[in-house]
C-alpha cells in the first residue's frame, strides 16, 4: 500500500487550486493540469461574491436559513445532506480565504463586507470589490506556489485532458494531450480529480470563458461516468451582446431602479411592470429571463433617468463596459439586453465525497453536479467550488492506495495510434463549423423555453452533426484539441437534449411550455448514462448519489 497518494487534478480554476492546496496540506502529492495558467480560468470572472453566514455576534442570519434558501432556490433537488455540509463549512472557508491573503472588502468595523444577492433572505454574500473571483484566484495562486516550491504540487500547463485510464470501474490516471509537442502523455495517479468548469462551448456565446467546453465530462460520459441534471442551465437575464460573447450586466442595475421595456409601434412597453406590478423588474433571474425571451422585439434596460452621480458611484463598471464594448452611454440611452447561458447546475454525478460512479474518479467545482439542484443562488458556486475541493482532499487523505496498477500500455498505444492516424488525414471541412452548428442548435432548442417538438428537432439536428462528424477528417487549419474534442462535445449536447426532453415538468431553470407546472412526483435528480451509443436516463429515486 502507498501512504502518500499521487493525485492528478485536471483544471486550475478556484476548484482545482483549492483541491491541490488542501491535498498538499494533507500530505498527498499533486499534479495539476491545465492548458493555461490559473489567471486565464473562468474563476477570475466571478464578480459578485461568495456566500457565508459568518456567525458574528448580533447577526440574525443563520446557517439553517442559508440551507433553506439554497434548497428552495434549487427547487429541492440539491441533496439536503450535501447542502447542509456546504452551508456549515462556509464561514470556515471565508476564514481560510482570509488566512491565505484574499483581499476582501471590509466594512467600517473591519468585518468582511457582505451584500444582498437574489433569492437570499439575508445579506450574506462576502465580496472583494467587483472582482471577488480574481482576488481569490490571486491568493490561491500564491498558496499553490508555496506548495510548488515545497515540491508538493507540480503544475503541468500546455496540456489538455484526453481520456481517463479506467479498468473494471476504477480509474488509474489520465492520458493528456501536450499541445506543445502534439503528443499524448500517460500520467498514472491514485485518484483523478476533474475540475474543468462549465460547458460553455455547447452554446457558443455565453457570459463565461471559452476554455470551458465540456469536452472532459463528455469524454468521461463515454467512458462510463454518469452525468446528472444536465437540463438545468441558468440563464442570466441581462447581458450585453458583442460579436463574440454576452457580457453580464449585473442585477445591481435593476436593484438601482433599472426598468425593462421593448418598443411596439414606437411606444415603450414596460412589460415587467405591466405584468408583475411596480417591482416587476426585480423578479427572479428565471422569470425575468423567460419574459425577456418571450418579448416580441429587442428588450432594453433603462437606467438613464438615474442621477448621473449615482451611476458614477454605484454602477461605474456597467457604465464602462457599455461604453467600451458597445459605445453606449448609459446616462443617455437604454442598454439593449439579452438573456445568456451563465451557469451549469448539471455535470458529473458525484457521491457525498465527490467520487463519481467510477472508483478513484472525482469531480469538483462547476463540472460536478451536487449542491445547486434545479437552480443555483448567486454566490453559492464559488462556495461549492472550494467546499467540494476540500471534501475531496479530505476523503483522499483517508484512503490507502494500492501500489499496483493494471497495464494500460495496450490502451495508450491504441489511443496514440488512433490520434496519429487521425492527424495524418486531411479535410477541407472546418471542424469549427460543426462547433458553430452545435451552438446554434443548442441555443435554438435548449433555450429558456423548451417543448417536446423543439427538443426532438434539436436531437435530429445534433444526430445529423454527429453523422457528419463521424466521417470528419483532420482539419489542420486549427489545433489538434479542437479536432479531437468535437465528438465528445456532440455526445454531451445530445445527452443534454435527452435530459431536457425526459423531464416533463417545469422546475427551477428548466421551463417546458408543454408542461408548465412542477410535478411533485419528479422531485428527484436525473441521471444519464452511456453505453456504446445507447443513452439511458433515470430519476434518482433512491438518492443513490446522496451517500
Amino acid at each position, binding site marked *: 500500500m502507498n501512504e502518500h497518494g499521487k493525485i492528478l487534478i485536471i483544471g486550475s480554476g478556484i476548484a482545482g487550486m483549492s483541491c491541490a492546496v488542501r491535498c498538499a496540506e494533507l500530505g498527498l502529492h499533486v499534479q495539476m493540469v491545465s492548458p*493555461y*495558467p490559473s*489567471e*486565464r*480560468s*473562468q474563476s*477570475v*470572472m466571478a464578480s459578485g461574491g461568495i456566500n457565508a453566514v459568518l456567525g458574528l455576534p448580533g447577526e440574525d442570519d443563520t446557517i439553517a436559513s442559508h440551507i433553506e434558501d439554497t434548497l428552495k432556490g434549487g427547487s429541492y433537488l440539491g441533496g439536503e445532506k450535501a447542502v447542509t455540509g456546504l452551508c456549515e463549512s462556509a464561514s470556515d472557508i471565508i476564514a481560510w480565504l*482570509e*488566512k*491565505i*491573503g*484574499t*483581499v476582501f*472588502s*471590509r466594512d467600517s468595523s473591519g468585518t468582511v463586507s457582505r451584500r444582498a444577492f437574489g433569492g437570499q433572505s439575508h445579506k450574506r454574500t462576502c465580496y*472583494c*470589490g467587483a*472582482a471577488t473571483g*480574481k*482576488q481569490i484566484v*490571486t*491568493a490561491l495562486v*500564491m*498558496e499553490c*506556489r*508555496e506548495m*510548488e*516550491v515545497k515540491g508538493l504540487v507540480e*503544475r503541468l*500547463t500546455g496540456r489538455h485532458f484526453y481520456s481517463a485510464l479506467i479498468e473494471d470501474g476504477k480509474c488509474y490516471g489520465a492520458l493528456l494531450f501536450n499541445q*506543445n509537442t502534439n503528443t499524448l502523455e500517460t500520467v498514472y495517479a491514485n485518484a483523478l480529480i476533474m475540475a474543468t468548469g462549465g460547458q460553455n462551448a455547447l452554446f457558443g456565446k455565453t457570459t*463565461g*470563458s*471559452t*476554455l470551458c467546453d465540456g469536452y472532459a465530462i463528455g469524454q468521461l460520459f463515454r467512458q462510463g461516468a454518469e452525468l446528472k441534471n444536465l437540463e438545468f442551465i441558468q440563464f442570466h437575464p441581462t447581458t450585453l451582446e*458583442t*460579436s*463574440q*460573447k454576452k*457580457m453580464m450586466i449585473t442585477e445591481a442595475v435593476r436593484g438601482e431602479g433599472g426598468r425593462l421595456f421593448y418598443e411596439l409601434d414606437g411606444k415603450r412597453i414596460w412589460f415587467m411592470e405591466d405584468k408583475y406590478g411596480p417591482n416587476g423588474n426585480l423578479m427572479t433571474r428565471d422569470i425575468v429571463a423567460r419574459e425577456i425571451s418571450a418579448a416580441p422585439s429587442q428588450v432594453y434596460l433603462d437606467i438613464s433617468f438615474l442621477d448621473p452621480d449615482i451611476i458614477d458611484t454605484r454602477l461605474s463598471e456597467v457604465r464602462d*463596459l457599455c461604453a*467600451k*464594448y*458597445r*459605445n453606449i452611454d448609459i446616462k443617455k440611452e437604454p442598454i439593449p439586453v439579452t438573456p445568456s447561458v451563465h451557469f451549469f447546475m448539471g455535470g458529473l454525478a458525484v457521491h457525498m465525497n465527490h467520487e463519481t460512479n467510477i472508483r478513484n474518479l472525482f469531480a469538483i467545482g462547476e463540472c460536478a453536479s451536487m449542491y445547486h439542484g434545479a437552480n443555483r443562488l448567486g454566490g453559492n458556486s464559488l462556495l461549492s467550488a472550494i467546499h467540494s475541493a476540500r471534501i475531496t482532499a479530505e476523503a483522499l487523505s483517508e484512503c490507502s492506495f494500492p501500489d499496483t496498477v493494471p497495464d494500460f500500455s495496450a490502451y495508450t498505444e491504441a489511443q496514440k495510434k488512433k490520434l496519429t492516424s487521425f492527424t495524418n488525414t486531411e479535410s477541407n471541412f*472546418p471542424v*469549427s463549423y460543426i462547433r*458553430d452548428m452545435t451552438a446554434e442548435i443548442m441555443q435554438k432548442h435548449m433555450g429558456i423555453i423548451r417543448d417536446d417538438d423543439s427538443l426532438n428537432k434539436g436531437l435530429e439536428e445534433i444526430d445529423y452533426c454527429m453523422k457528419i462528424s463521424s466521417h470528419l477528417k483532420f482539419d*489542420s*487549419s*486549427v*489545433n489538434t484539441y479542437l479536432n479531437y474534442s468535437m465528438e465528445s462535445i456532440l455526445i454531451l449536447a445530445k445527452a443534454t437534449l435527452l435530459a431536457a426532453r425526459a423531464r416533463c415538468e417545469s422546475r427551477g431553470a428548466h421551463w417546458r411550455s408543454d408542461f408548465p407546472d412542477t410535478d411533485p412526483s419528479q422531485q428527484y435528480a436525473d441521471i444519464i448514462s452511456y453505453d456504446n451509443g445507447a443513452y439511458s436516463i433515470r430519476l434518482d429515486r433512491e438518492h443513490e448519489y446522496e451517500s
Partner: protein
Amino acid sequence: MNMKVKILRKKNPGSESYWETFAYNGPENNSIAGVLDYLNYHDDPVNVQGKVSDRITWECSCLQGECGACAMVINGVPALACETFLRDLKGSEIVLQPLRKFPVVCDLAVDRSSMQENLKKTNAYIGDYIPSPGEDHTHQYNAAKCLKCGLCLEVCPNYVNGNTFYGAAFANDCYLIYARNKDKAGDIRKVYGEHFAAGCSKSLSCVDVCPVGIPTLASMAKLNR
C-alpha cells in the same frame, strides 16, 4: 469596412516567422479579438494573394479584459486584443505581432511561463496573512488584480526574458506579499531589491500600459520605504 490585417506568423517554435496579410470586410465596431475571430471563422481564411491559409492562432478566454490571455502588439502598441477597437485605430492597415519579449508558441500565442517561474524561484508567496494596522486595502486590491498578461514586460526597456530583472508584475506581487505578511517583509524586500529595484530605470511605461491600471509606482514607493 475595408481594411488590411497584416500578421506576423510562425507555425511552431522552431520555424521561421513570416508576414501574411488578410483583407477584413467585417463589422467596424469589432475589437481586434473580434477581427481575428472574423478572419478565422467567417469563411476560410484567404490571404490577399488569394491563397487559403491556416487559421490564425491566438489565446483567449474571457474576451472582456479580465484574464490577460489575448495580449499582443497592435500597430506597434502592446495591448489586449479584446479591449482594442477598430474605431480607435488609425489608417487602413492593422499590424498584429506576438509579444516580442516571450518565445512564440504559434502565430500570436506566446509562452509567458517565465513570469510564473520567476515568482517561484524567489519564493514569492504570501504564506499566512497577518493583519496590521493602517493597511492600504485599496492598493492591495489593485496589486492583486494583476492579469499576468505580460504587457508591462513587453514595454519595459529593462526586461529581457531569462535575465535577472523580473519587471513590474513581479514588483506588484512582491508588494502584495510584503503588505499581507510582515513576517516575510525582509525576505521579500531582498528579492525585490535584487530582481526589480536594482534594474528598474523608472521609465514607468509599465504603468501606462497596464490594462487594469495597477499603480506600480505606489507599490515601488511602499517597498522602497
